[in-house]
């Protein structure tokens, strides 16, 4: 581990020399850090301290299982029930439901709103999250009025519902990185669709809340992709390990 990125525990003192000091930009604190006025910056979780002098930001990198809603996160949620003007959705087990207004879909008006059954999976964005309030979701971009791929995933009634798989939050975040292979070290999806997997055809929706939806014409492919994702996450596989895993699974499930 590089000495510039030490592992910290809650309440430990951070070496002042590590705190980025940009002359103009304000210091930005990411997850896992708290500021005790006037000058103390203290970690609140156990993880690796990462600093970015260019952006004048710092945060703690760690993995966990419980999702805490943050605005603009993409999440995979499940409809619990409908109220007069919104759906109540489940973000993670045993937590208070989030609301998804009936009007937060592309082209939805008071008269034409999408009808979703309880239990349907929906890919959505967190619009509003605040520790004092239940989170609010949206399936439409407020700026463009377009869905941009958000909305209900799969059609269980027609027998093509796909399936959702649970992964750790850290793994979901790595899958969501713009360059997940280079930065996050996950190439398993690319491999499945590419040479190693023999060009499997499937679609995915990765939720920051640790749920990944996989859809495909063939149930075999869905199971294969799901298993590949979960085993990569649990086994902590590197790129080479992922390649071997994909090859093995494809051989096994043929």
């Amino acid at each position, binding site marked *: *581990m590089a000495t510039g*990125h030490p*592992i910290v*525990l*809650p*309440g*430990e003192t951070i070496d002042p020399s590590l705190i980025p000091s940009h002359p103009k930009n304000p210091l930005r604190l990411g997850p*896992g850090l*708290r500021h005790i006025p006037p000058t103390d910056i203290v970690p*609140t*979780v*156990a*993880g*690796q301290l990462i600093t970015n002098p260019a952006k004048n930001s710092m945060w703690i*990198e*760690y*993995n*966990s*299982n*419980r999702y*805490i809603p943050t605005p603009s996160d993409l999440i995979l949620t499940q409809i619990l029930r409908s109220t007069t003007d919104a759906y109540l959705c489940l973000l993670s*087990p*045993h*937590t*208070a439901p989030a609301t998804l207004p009936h009007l937060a879909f592309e082209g939805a008006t008071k008269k034409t709103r999408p009808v979703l059954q309880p239990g349907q999976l929906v890919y959505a964005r967190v619009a509003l999250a605040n*520790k*004092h309030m239940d989170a609010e979701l949206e399936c439409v971009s407020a700026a463009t009025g377009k869905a941009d791929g958000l909305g209900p995933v799969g059609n269980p009634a027609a027998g093509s519902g796909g399936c959702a798989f649970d992964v750790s939050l*850290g793994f979901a975040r*790595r899958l969501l990185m713009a360059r997940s292979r280079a930065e*996050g*070290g*996950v190439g398993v999806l690319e491999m499945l669709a590419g040479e190693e997997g023999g060009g499997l055809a499937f679609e995915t929706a990765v939720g920051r809340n640790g749920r990944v939806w996989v859809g495909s014409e063939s149930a075999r492919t869905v199971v294969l992709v799901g298993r590949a994702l979960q085993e990569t996450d649990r086994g*902590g596989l*590197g790129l080479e390990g992922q390649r071997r895993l994909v090859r093995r699974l494809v051989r096994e499930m043929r």
Partner: protein
Amino acid sequence: MTATTAPKAALGVLPRSDGSAKYSHAGYTLTASVNGPIEAQRRDEHAYEAHVEVIVRPAAGVGGTRERHLESLLQSSLAQLILVKNFPRSLIQVVLQIEDSPENDYVNTKLVQASLNFAIMPALVQTAILALLSAGVPMRATATATAVAVVHQDGAKKMVVDPSPREVETASSVHVLAFTSHNGLLLAESEGDFTVGEWDDVYETAKEICCRSTPAKEGTAMVLDDEEPSATDMRQFLRSTMESKVAADLHWK
């Protein structure tokens, strides 16, 4: 009889809870699970902070007043460490399951009404802290705990760290102390007869075990370890456990 084995811990042992830890030290083996923040029941809901619930489950028999007492002690200590204000109206649930505790070979215990040994307290604290860290619950600081018994033997007074059940029985007083990582005294619970002087000695002994200054940089750890190989350094143990967990989590970096 002195079971001063080095503490052992494994994190994330329960795949279906948010955080978990299995900890064994001095003959005690415990598993803890942490779930949270989750939805709190109406009666537990607090408008401005998270409710911390601690449940202690004995290995055999039903829990009694003894367990409730330990739960309330742990609850008030952990609520001090967890940043409860971050999660209003929610619940952070800590469940501690005792798996194994050292037995006193010289008596036949009645077990249907389980009565926990007081000396299990440090293991409870330690396991709960590890499980909370594994769940990534935001905390103000970490904590370490130890038990010290004062034994009068042949007119001489002796401090026994991590006493066995037999030693607890013969001790004139038993003390459990927990310190935060900022060297603050978090919990002090005593049983039996003791003088103020004795308590001061106990305090110093416990502090030595719990609060040995963590070697901050470049391997001063080795030097310290060489000086005093007998006593376990709880803080160093906590740190190395978490370091290996974080390193495993971030293997892709």
